[in-house]
């Protein structure tokens, strides 16, 4: 069966069903959250750019921030009838592409931390992750079997 590839660009949140592939290409410091129902063939993918709105004020309805984006992602899945206790997540990305170190936590690191904290506050376990390091990734998430294929120039191909 031919799969339908649904591209999830920066700041977007999309839903996929059995047979669909949710894909984010060329991910650097952004963090990709794939959240799905343990039993059903239903998943959503978020492509978050920053941990939160600069200045710290929460602004609802924005998918480019990981905190509010994950809120929206969970709401979307709840609306589909999935219960919170059946949700699992896999997260990808958050690389430090350029080594200009000034001792501060990088955007990638902050993105990973915020994604984990937000998911954990909702009680959603992170089942697998391929995060951090210094290279870009392309992620294809197969909704049918909840497997992700991660490709990178530096580290080849992985399945998670």
């Amino acid at each position, binding site marked *: 069966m031919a799969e339908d590839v649904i591209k999830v*660009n920066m700041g977007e949140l999309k839903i996929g069903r059995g047979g669909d592939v949710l894909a984010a290409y*060329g991910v650097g*410091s952004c963090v990709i959250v794939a959240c799905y129902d343990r039993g059903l063939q239903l998943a959503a993918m978020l492509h978050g*750019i*920053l941990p939160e709105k600069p200045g710290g004020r929460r602004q609802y309805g924005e998918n480019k921030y990981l905190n509010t984006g994950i809120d929206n992602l969970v709401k979307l899945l709840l609306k589909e009838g999935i219960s919170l206790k059946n949700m699992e997540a896999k997260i990808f990305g958050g690389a430090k592409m350029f080594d200009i170190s000034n001792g501060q936590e990088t955007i990638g690191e902050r993105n990973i931390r915020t994604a984990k904290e937000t998911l954990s506050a909702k009680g959603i376990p992170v089942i697998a992750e391929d995060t951090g390091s210094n290279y870009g990734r*392309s992620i294809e998430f197969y909704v049918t079997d909840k497997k992700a294929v991660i490709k990178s120039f*530096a580290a080849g191909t992985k399945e998670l």
Partner: protein
Amino acid sequence: MAESKLTDFQRDALKELGNIGAGSAASALSQMLGRDISIDVPSIVMVPVEKMAEMISRDARIVAAVYMRIFGDIQARALIIFPQDKVFLLLDMLMRRKLGQTKEFGETEQSAIKEIGNIIISAYLNSISKFIGLNAVPSVPALAVDMVDAIFQTVSAELAEMSSEAMLIENEMTEEVTNLKSKMFIIPDRASMARILEALNNTIKGA
């Protein structure tokens, strides 16, 4: 928030500024490589930061990118990218080796690429900051060899922390013999863009 529009006058003035910068960048590159370098008319667009990666490339092409942060009166990000399959030729020319001689990308080669990027970007910045009377101080250069999308995503995330849109000034420089095309991007944030436009206005009126 609506996208800012540039007037024709502003666009022309920015193009001229881009040309001045590109002229000195190309002459620095030409001296380093000992070759003629041609430049194209710069392209200048205002983009919402999250659309920047999409605008630049829709493929997973691998590039060598030298990245610098710019501080001072102008807060910006500067990036120069070389196609990965031409990096060895670039090193051959830089190190005055026979074309095809460089075969590995070790420490020396990596710092040589960083240094090329540093010199080109600094030449560009020096000439534009002299022209408009604003200072711009670059950070140390950083290098990444990776998917062009991943590189631009990362740069746009950094810009997104400062403003919702940015000005993208793109210059292309070509070495004809090897057909090496390098692209340079200077991306000021919104506040710096306003400062540049104001300074340009004063410079032109005062002239």
